[in-house]
């Protein structure tokens, strides 16, 4: 091969490479731009994110998947997947958590915090059931099944009628009874104590509780 022939050929290859680089440049440059350690990690693909992006926001339902389910279908699915632990009517089998009832108990000596009495947002139920339930097989229900079960759980809490059909637009509109029960933000420190060092008490200390020694609920310590 003569030099004169070689040159144009090389030039052509170089040009082609440059064109390729130009084509790839926008994405790569955008990706690396502004990064201090561009060689660590890479762009997450849309498909990768889609598979993992399972969260649903409680207050507005952002992230709810397309789908729908009825409380009627939910009854059957609930019986199959949930009732063994939470009871047919959500009352809780044995020591498993109850998910109904408790309305009016939040100020009592024995508050019962359930989906019906305590949870402020309905989409949170979808989020939680999908990510964490059934307890031994999380992340196994389809979107439609989850909507149906959520509709059923809300219906046995008298929050939606048992004819309800819920989907990504209607679920965020369900108003939970304890919607306004939460104070967002931290008012602490809310208890003020004095660092007194001597003669701090006006009267002798009085033991108000020493049941621990007799209650017999401490592992390794039988009751006396």
């Amino acid at each position, binding site marked *: 091969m003569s030099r004169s022939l070689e040159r144009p050929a090389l030039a052509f290859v170089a040009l082609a490479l440059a064109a390729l680089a130009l084509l790839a440049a926008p994405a790569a440059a*955008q990706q690396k731009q*502004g*990064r201090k350690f561009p060689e*660590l*990690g*890479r*762009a*997450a693909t849309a498909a*990768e*994110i889609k598979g993992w*992006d399972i*969260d649903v926001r*409680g207050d507005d339902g952002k992230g709810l998947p397309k789908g729908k389910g009825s409380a009627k279908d939910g009854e059957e699915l609930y019986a199959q997947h949930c009732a063994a632990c939470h009871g047919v009517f959500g009352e809780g089998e*044995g*020591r*498993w958590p109850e998910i109904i009832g408790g309305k009016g108990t*939040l*100020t009592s000596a*024995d*508050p019962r*915090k359930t989906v019906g009495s*305590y949870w*402020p947002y309905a989409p*949170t139920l979808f*989020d*939680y059931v999908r*990510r*964490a339930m059934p*307890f031994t097989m*999380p992340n196994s229900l389809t979107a439609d099944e989850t909507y149906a079960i959520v509709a059923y759980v809300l219906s046995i809490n008298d929050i939606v009628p048992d004819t309800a059909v819920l989907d990504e637009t209607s679920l965020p509109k369900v108003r939970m009874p304890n919607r306004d029960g*939460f*104070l*967002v*933000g*931290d008012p602490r*420190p*809310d*208890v*003020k*104590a*004095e660092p007194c*060092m001597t*003669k*701090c*008490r006006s009267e*002798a*200390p009085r033991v*108000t*509780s*020493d*049941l*621990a*020694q007799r*209650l017999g*609920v*401490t*592992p*390794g*310590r*039988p009751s006396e």
Partner: protein
Amino acid sequence: MNEDRSEVARRVAAMERLRPSRRGFMKVAAAGGAVAAFGGPDIKRALAAGENLPPNVPEWMKTLGPGVTASPYGAPSKYEKEVVRRNVGWLTASEESSINFTPIHMLEGIITPSGLCFERHHGGVPEIDPAQHRLVIHGMVARPLIFTMDDIVRFPSVSRIMFLECPANGGMEWRGAQMAGCQFTHGMVHCCEWTGVKLSTLLAEAGVAKGAKWLLAEGADAAAMTRSIPLDKALDDVIVAYAQNGERIRPEQGYPLRLMVPGWEGNVNVKWVRRIKLGDKPWHHREETSKYTDLMPDGTARQFTFVQEANSVVTFPCPERPLDGKGTYEIRGIAWSGRGKIKRVDVSLDGGDNWRSAQLQEPVLSKALVRFRLPWKWEGGPALVQSRALDETGYVQPTIEQLRKVRGVNSIYHKNAIHTWRVNPNGKIDNVQIA
């Protein structure tokens, strides 16, 4: 609080009704745990036999011990087998969503050995292959990114000694003294050295979008644990940690990757973290509405009460470690504050009438345990032993009465009251509450 006893009894009875199998369980727990929990007699018996005591030459000087290959990963002496985490069976329906307790009463200094750190899981401990673990950062960012463990370890690293406390620590005792052991009244806390990359470093790589104010952290466990964390905190001192006390994090503490959120309630320190999503609002997920919210006497609940306020406890003497006759002792304990450094710890022997400041072991680190000590000559009389922590913000640890006055008894979380141990003339130590 005179009716306190019947209060606790009533509460237990109520739990009994709800949980029919508890009694059976307790019997098993009592039978199995009794020997293990309150050790000591074994060693005393061996000593009494005297065959290894002077003037005799001890048997372990007359034979060779095992060599360097016997124990590639060491374990504590067999005589320390009682120093273990313990759980309270009746607290939860399943062991996979449950908690156990650090044996703080048996530990010295401020570092909790990794294998003794209390565990709290909501779906058991996942067995994660680090080669198949990924961290995704997405949402309100300029560049959604995905990292391998190798990527994360290559970033500039930081180490920090910090405590981590479950906000339910002490939560069984809002109404009265229930647990006859320091491990169970205060053992939902540990303190380790954690190493990782600052979350702010990773977020800078992804580029925080304008308007982002919160992030959602999600674990790769069967509970897919999620918590919302304000971005300010995330950019301040949060670490994405891969090492604990020098080695890779223990599986039950989040292997291979977890968040460490200094001074904030344990649950937001999401273990096995696989995803961080930025957004403009919190997510109000189950663990920040149904759980980890503080129910007040008026029926409203406080949400996002993240900080663990100053707390302290005397770890010796305590119910598991009674006094052995009159004489010289050192009162020992731990104190900590989620708002910064502990400034002072006072100890009272008379139920809070008079206090003396204890000695603090240096270094006193921000948002870490600090060890306090006070020499004590016990004359054999009754005493009510208390400790009271003060932190650098001027906050003073309150009494249980002061706490109850503001928060009632239903909040479960964030009980950081001054604790009282009653010393009986026979040296036995009781868990009591006083007014």
